């Protein structure tokens, strides 16, 4: 396991370096003069010069690139000129809100999807199976920027049960979490069903039943445990969708997380902050993927062997 962990961590280095380089290079694609775009054409020449110096645009590219990488290692992502403070600090202030939203969405998805997937698998082709799988297809196809406003309309405006936006208490978390979690719930329920169906055909399930175990024990202890591996993978892989989905969900509900920060930074043309948000979101995704792989290798020892030997 130690060797596997080490190998996985080592593989992270080129990815993190590549992502950082790509993000750095992208700022070159800005058409025209970035300083003029950020400050507007009517800005004072002195301000422009100051900003140019601050962004280091007056120095050669390779130097700036090295400084950028050096800053990254030290955790320095530059300064946001809209918020007038360090980019990393601005992001870290917003980070907990996004984490909270993503976790809540994941919980919503698991609570809905796993039981539904299990029931659908046990009662294959029944009414409940067909209905839930049809709903799952709609869930995958429904954009969260449609579901969000719809939920606001029903639960906040018509029924006046939940707050429209903001982050104050658990009540304000419910609608954003459902909005963000629905697509994941849809994918997860299909995956749980497929995975359970496959496991239920295995011989050890027949053995367990033949031993006279209760059906509940057979399903939960024998089948579900083995069906869990692909389910965990899907949760891990989809955490990326949660992170990018959070950008839209946070915008709809004015949720003060990093996704909304990114959109605000884009609107105010605060490029250092845009860069910082993109980097932090990507790095978070890379870390979640790593954790998923480790969990996966922990649950299924065969993976450690295959990849450790390769």
């Amino acid at each position, binding site marked *: 396991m130690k060797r596997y962990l080490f190998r996985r961590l080592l593989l992270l280095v080129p990815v993190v370096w590549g*992502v950082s380089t790509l993000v750095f290079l992208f700022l070159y694609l800005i058409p025209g003069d970035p300083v003029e775009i950020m400050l507007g054409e009517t800005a004072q020449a002195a301000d422009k010069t100051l900003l140019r110096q601050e962004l280091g645009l007056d120095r050669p590219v390779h130097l700036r690139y090295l400084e950028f990488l050096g800053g990254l290692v030290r955790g320095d992502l530059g300064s946001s000129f809209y918020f007038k403070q360090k980019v990393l600090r601005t992001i870290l202030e917003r980070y907990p809100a996004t984490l909270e939203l993503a976790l809540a969405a994941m919980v919503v998805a698991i609570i809905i999807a796993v039981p539904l997937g299990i029931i659908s698998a046990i009662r294959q082709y029944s009414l409940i199976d067909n209905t839930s799988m049809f709903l799952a297809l709609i869930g995958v196809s429904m954009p969260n920027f449609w579901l969000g406003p719809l939920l606001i309309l029903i639960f906040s*405006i018509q029924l006046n049960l939940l707050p429209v936006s903001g982050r104050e208490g658990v009540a304000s978390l419910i609608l954003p979490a459902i909005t963000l979690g629905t697509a994941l719930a849809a994918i997860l329920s299909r995956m749980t069903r497929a995975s359970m169906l496959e496991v239920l055909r295995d011989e050890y399930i027949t053995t367990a039943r033949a031993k006279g175990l209760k059906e509940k024990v057979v399903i939960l202890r024998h089948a579900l445990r083995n069906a869990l591996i692909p389910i965990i993978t899907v949760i891990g892989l989809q955490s990326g969708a949660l*992170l*990018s989905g959070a950008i839209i969900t946070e915008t709809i509900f004015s949720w003060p997380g990093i996704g909304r920060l990114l959109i605000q930074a*884009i609107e105010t043309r605060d490029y250092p902050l845009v860069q910082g948000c993109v980097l932090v979101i*990507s790095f978070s*995704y890379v870390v979640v993927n790593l954790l998923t792989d480790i969990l996966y290798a922990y649950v299924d020892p065969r993976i450690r062997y295959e990849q450790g030997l390769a």
Partner: protein
Amino acid sequence: MKNRFAIIGLVVVIIFALTAIFAPILAPYDPNQQELREGFGSPRQGHLLGQDRLGRDILSRIIFGSRVSVLVGISTVSISLLLGLTIGSLAGYYGGAIDELFMRVIDILLAFPGILLAIFMTAILGPSLRNVILALCVLGWVGYARIVRGQFLSVREREYTLSVKALGASDLRVILRHIIPNILSPVIVEATFGMAAVILAEASLSFLGLGTQGMPSWGAMLSEGAEFLEVAPHLSTFPGCAIILIVLGFNFLGDGLRDWLDPKKVVVSRLS
């Protein structure tokens, strides 16, 4: 059951394509024609889906909005497909350093979750039809390349490939005439799901104000409607329905095609 869904999907997709092509004939109004005094008009005879803030006919805007979705969908999927086929073939056929290089590039691109990279690119390049397509293609080819590469790895050492090679066929001939025709099925299925994903991504970008400018697009309509949810919920409801319908259509079609084109899948469902 599955087949019926696939046919529904196909019908939806065809209707969607026809709507985009014949938009000027089908739309009852000019999508940009304003009737300021009738702003926020509710659905009624004459304006079946109502009017937006500026009194523009929502039905006509949805009909014309399909053009953006079709345009972005078809161009992004075709360009991504072509890139993915080329890169996946090269990596899978030659292996070695080329393969290693492309796989590392893919690792880096996949570290950007979902549409983050597209948001970042359109934010930097500026919102326009061309930039949206460009931004979606940057990540779009990866899925196809991975599938094609995987298929190549399994087909590369098969007898028929080896025998054609032994007969002295050039690499290009082996790839284009003998391997690619044999591995197209999963690529076609992926492209069908890809259309759904791209249309959804385009709508997301438009919703965030990073999409096409100047043309009516479903995502932008939804975004505008979300501001007036309380006074005029029909502003965002109908474009949302349009998006769901077409994405559902492509997903149904993709599911059906997968069952139809993948013999292994069929065996499993026959057993169950």
